[in-house]
């Protein structure tokens, strides 16, 4: 790795904390971002010559803050601060000042920065775009291509989101315990959204969005370092790691989806699974279950099965039942039905999903899953109808192609049956 590559890594790692601290100084996202950019440019000049500072984050906060103050003063036609050479080598007094300014607020700073990005006034797509831009520092061009829109459109979307936040007036005092818990929950949900944007991508979008799942895991680890004793944060990180571990096995050479039970499990990422299982173990010790922990526990049961037939579906059924209680949703019930089908059979599973028809009528997976149960029960005409509905609702070519395979199989079965009947 070259020196510059190392500096890139250090700048990326320092970004959330540095931008968050600068945001607290200036209480304005644009100013904080510009100050950080400025500090990065100076780091690229100073670090290769002077060597890396002992505390890169403190250096960036200090230099960024001074650069922005300099700007403000220049605009006010006052005397500028001393030139940057004087700042590029922080002495101990300045370092400890930066530490003092930053250390005690560090946790709430970063939480505030993340929370601002998932402000309830913002629609989910804007929350994700803003977090990727501001916290992760991903260039607008790359965010735009992940969302399949033009760079100008994404730039505008981010600008609008920032304007909305500025109006929303997020308080800068350290939050109380209740508010902190609320922020934590909102931030966890936003990180999960970022992950899903990456994970649920199919077809051409897979490559464009591959980085989003990694980015979400980085954010989850960041949140976990801030709140090392929160079981739901451990659960979130575990869930993302365990799901992401399957990524290398999820698509075939043509980009078609490979279902869990057909995946080559030797291609799952063992290191991510180990980390996910370790975090889940830690979380369960706290005996304070929550939706992320339960979902992680489900993913863990799947990760622990070397072969699909080794999966403990009865336990997964129980966990989904727990999730239904914690977070009632027809989609959770639909997922539970899949587990029920595996260990109690398609009739029980179908009985579980039939009452969901009204609420999930516009949901691709509902018709796909229901069709599969009907097919297993030999109710071919109804299965064909359900698959037809699913194809009409498919969000991608890969989803439609997957359902078409079922239809082809029904067709082939029907042909065999009619051949048998006529012979």
């Amino acid at each position, binding site marked *: 790795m070259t020196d510059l590559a190392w500096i890139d*890594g250090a700048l990326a790692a320092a970004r959330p904390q540095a931008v968050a601290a600068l945001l607290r100084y200036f209480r304005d996202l644009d100013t904080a971002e510009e100050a950080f950019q400025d500090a990065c440019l100076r780091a690229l000049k100073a670090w290769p010559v002077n060597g890396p500072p002992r505390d890169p984050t403190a250096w960036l906060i200090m230099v960024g803050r001074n650069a922005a103050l300099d700007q403000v003063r220049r605009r006010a036609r006052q005397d500028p601060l001393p030139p940057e050479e004087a700042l590029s080598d922080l002495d101990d007094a300045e370092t400890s000042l930066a530490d003092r300014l930053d250390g005690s607020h560090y946790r709430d700073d970063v939480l505030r920065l993340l929370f601002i990005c998932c402000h309830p006034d913002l629609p989910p797509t804007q929350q994700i775009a803003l977090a990727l831009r501001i916290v992760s520092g991903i260039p607008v061009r790359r965010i735009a291509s992940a969302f399949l829109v033009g760079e100008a459109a994404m730039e505008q979307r981010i600008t609008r989101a920032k304007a909305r936040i500025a109006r929303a007036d997020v308080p800068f005092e350290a939050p109380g315990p209740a508010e902190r818990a609320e922020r934590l929950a909102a931030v966890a949900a936003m990180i999960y959204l970022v992950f899903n944007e990456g994970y649920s991508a199919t077809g051409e979008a897979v490559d464009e969005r591959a980085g989003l799942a990694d980015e979400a895991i980085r954010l989850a680890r960041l949140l976990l370092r801030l709140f090392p004793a929160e079981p739901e944060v451990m659960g979130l990180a575990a869930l993302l790691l365990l799901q992401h571990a399957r990524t290398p096995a999820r698509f075939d050479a043509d980009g078609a989806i490979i279902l869990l039970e057909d995946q080559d499990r030797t291609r799952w990422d063992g290191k991510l699974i180990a*980390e996910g299982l370790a*975090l889940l173990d830690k979380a369960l010790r706290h005996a304070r279950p929550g939706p992320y922990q339960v979902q992680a526990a489900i993913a863990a049961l799947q990760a622990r099965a070397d072969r699909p037939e080794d999966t403990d579906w009865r336990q997964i059924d129980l966990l989904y039942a727990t999730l239904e209680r914690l977070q009632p949703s027809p989609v959770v019930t639909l997922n539970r039905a899949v587990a029920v089908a595996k260990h109690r059979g398609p009739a029980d599973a179908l009985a579980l999903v039939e009452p969901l028809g009204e609420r999930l009528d516009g949901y691709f997976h509902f018709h796909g899953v229901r069709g599969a149960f009907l097919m297993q029960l030999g109710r071919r005409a109804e299965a064909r109808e359900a698959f037809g509905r699913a194809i009409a609702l498919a969000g991608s070519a890969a989803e439609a192609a997957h359902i078409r395979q079922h239809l082809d199989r029904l067709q082939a079965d029907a042909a065999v049956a009619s051949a048998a009947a006529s012979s």
Partner: protein
Amino acid sequence: MLYAILCYDNEDVVCSWTKDEDAAVMAKLAVVQDKLRKEGRLGPVARLLPTTAATTVRKGAEPLILDGPFAETKEQLLGFYIVECETLDDAVTVAKDLAKASSSNGSYELRPIGFYAAPEGRAP
């Protein structure tokens, strides 16, 4: 003398490596390891999961179980090697070779080992 070579680095930086960057560093480190292995000097080698996966048991009348590493530090213990070295100079040479293979900004702590229980009771 057996030495533990403890690898400290900023895990924020190491965790932000892409898969390819990570694999490239691991491949370079493997070259150094192979050389030591051929000389019969290499003991166990471990790369630790991030400190977020760590738990601390604090000794006391009633041991205290804490999430995370014991101390919050700028650089974290990310892995270690056990290597047979004649002298401290030898250990320094090994650490320099490792440093060349992974030129991130961390450090290696060379700790002579006082007691070592090898797998199956053998020295490395």
